């Protein structure tokens, strides 16, 4: 049996060129030669996607290349899953992405891993509305709901999935980068369990209780999230307007660059809301560190983001209502960037992916 790591260069070459037949060939060949499904899912598919994310973050790859590679990865997972059968053990799982969460590959990997361990799995796919989940839960009657969330900005939707499932007494295991390093926001949002990957999920599910209780409501700290959502459009318009006036390099942006700046500011506000939701400034500062690397890789001066955050903070302070927490989180982001410029970047490029 060839070690999975030895096959990786050939697999990556296929992934890089979007050659799905070759990628499927490497993976299926290894499976037929005796490699384990979990090893292949981790060592080929997982490793490949991590590299895809790093290439995109470093601006070596465009979005189309990233999409093509992800599509190949999906084919590989489907091909592997189709070749592994296991007798049913009697356990049932429902696997789903949170609403608005379109990164479905991790949940496809989990689905394949669970089936190979004898679980009967219903896979609901990407961006599933919580109301649909509620209906399926009663029809299918799983022993666990697995919720995947790759982006912290989808934690609101992930929480809805947790609420719906736990209301039916069905425990929830969560996973994905959206839940933060070591899944630090999983417990805050009421998940019964968290796992770093498919292998970890299989192990964790062996000791997970079959029943759970309805999740208690989250404490309401202030009106900042509702307020921020109401004024988001104004904050974005006003911030971009002021940045154009105050920052010489932004003043030279063409319409396309301005549009992307506007998207970035929307994104910043989104992540600010997510950080407020779990009441953890680290969610925001992690994002800011990641965004800084992305922007710098695309030729944006290192000082622009920090200046942009200051503008957003100024605009926010001028809005009616209380924005004490978001302003504090913005300050933490600014402090990290200003400190980071002296020490060099602290963040690996694929941190958020």
């Amino acid at each position, binding site marked *: 049996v060839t070690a999975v790591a030895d096959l990786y260069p050939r697999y990556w070459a296929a992934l890089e060129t979007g050659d799905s037949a070759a990628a499927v060939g490497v993976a299926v060949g290894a499976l037929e030669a005796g490699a384990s499904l979990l090893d292949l899912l981790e060592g080929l598919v997982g490793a490949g996607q991590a590299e895809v994310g790093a290439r995109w973050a470093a601006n070596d790859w465009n*979005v189309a290349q990233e*999409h093509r590679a992800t599509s190949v990865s999906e084919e590989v997972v489907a091909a592997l899953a189709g070749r592994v059968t296991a007798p049913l053990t009697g356990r049932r799982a429902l696997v789903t992405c949170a609403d608005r969460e379109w990164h479905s590959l991790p949940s496809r990997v989990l689905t394949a891993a669970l089936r190979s361990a004898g679980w009967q799995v219903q896979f609901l796919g990407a*961006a599933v509305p919580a109301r*649909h989940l509620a209906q399926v*839960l009663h029809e299918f009657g799983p022993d666990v709901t697995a919720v995947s969330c790759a982006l912290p900005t989808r934690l609101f939707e992930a929480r809805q999935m947790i609420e719906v499932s736990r209301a*039916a*007494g069905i425990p929830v295991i969560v996973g994905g980068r959206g839940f933060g390093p070591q899944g630090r926001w999983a417990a805050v949002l009421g998940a019964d369990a968290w796992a770093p990957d498919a292998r970890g999920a299989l192990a964790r599910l062996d000791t997970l209780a079959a029943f759970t*209780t309805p999740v208690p409501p989250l404490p309401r700290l202030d009106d900042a999230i509702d307020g921020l959502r109401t004024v988001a459009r104004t904050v974005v318009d006003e911030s971009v307007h002021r940045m154009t006036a105050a920052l010489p390099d932004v003043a030279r942006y063409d319409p396309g660059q301005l549009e992307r700046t506007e998207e970035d500011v929307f994104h910043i506000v989104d992540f600010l809301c997510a950080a407020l939701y779990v009441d953890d400034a680290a969610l925001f500062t992690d994002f800011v560190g990641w965004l800084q690397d992305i922007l710098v890789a695309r030729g944006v001066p290192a000082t622009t983001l920090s200046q942009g955050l200051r503008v957003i903070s100024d605009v926010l302070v001028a809005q009616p209502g209380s924005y004490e927490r978001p302003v504090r989180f913005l300050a933490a982001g600014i402090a990290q960037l200003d400190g980071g410029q002296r020490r060099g970047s602290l963040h690996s490029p694929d941190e958020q992916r």
Partner: protein
Amino acid sequence: LRTADALTGTLNLRRTARCVVHLAVPYLADWAGMTLVEGNRYRRIDSAGADGFAGDVRAPKLAGLGAAAAELDAARSGIRTHPGPLAAEMLAAFAVPAGLAEGLADGRGVLTTVPLLVPSGCWVLALAGRAAPDADELTAFTERVGRALTAAHLYEERATLARTLRAALVPAPLPQVPGIQLGAAYRPAQETTQIGGDFYDVTPRPDGRWAVSIGDVCGKGVEAAVLTGQVRQSLRTASLVTDDPADALRIVNDTLLRTDGSTFATVAYGVLGAGPSEWQLRLAVGGHPPPLLFRGGSVAPLPVQGTLVGMLPEVSFETVDLALCPGDVVLLYTDGVIEARGRSGVLGTDPVAHLLADCADLTAQALCERLLQLVMEHLDGWPHDDIAMLALRCTARSTA
């Protein structure tokens, strides 16, 4: 109280039964098993992990239990307490696990059985422990459990009915067509049931070719979905009579006018077959947005048009012929895609065409998922119409 709490959460039969054995141990016994007897078949679930409800395995026949079946039958008449030693038939009747069964056979412990009647049959709850459970506690427990099981049975009956009806109203899984990769996405306006008035179909024709359709029936939700059934059925019938898509749409138009008069639809309908060296797609549309063709790096709408289907007696449909080469992608979609209205207005055709050009080398399924993502992110939570799309990606020359 804990019993009531845990049982009220779920409507699912298997989960309810699982919950019963979960709650019974160690509250009432060391082990609890449930056997559902329905007609001449039975299913089991127990606190040690046995689960006869998993998978799609048919419930085994009672006759297979041999002499033990009589004990199961006797347990249906009322609460029974069996101090040990217990006969092998008793232990087999309730599937008491090996280790525990040994003790009971030797006379250590007590087995108590309680019948719980439900609309379709009878559950027998079997409890094994060192002593019999307290009578009052057992009564209180079985009353609550009985109500929950009855509710779950009624829900299951409804759910089975709904599932069967729903299966006829939502798109069927796509077939494998060698040389043409298929992909689709479907997002009805109604989130809970995921049923709507859009449809797509790829079905084999008797002549070895494939009938490809997508459409949008007036209205929303379940009512519209029922009408899609009519339209899809008429299309299938029409395809038996003619291989000209425009003719097929004329037949569907006449059928709808005769049956209802208030039902109309937009439809794109094609016949896909292997030509001598290329794939041939013959296509007609009725009131439907023209499908997009990706070829050689650029995207253009197919030059085909026609009137709404089922609205007027006088209609105009035309059939266009298209040869598909490897790399070509045809994207069919309903107007829920291009008319998606979000904060920044209506999506329109241009972003769809751009995405098709960028993603034409993805699998047809991945392409549709990307497009659905584009539409949903454009909507950003705003309400939407039913959305459906179907992509045909030519991956190999025809081998006819």
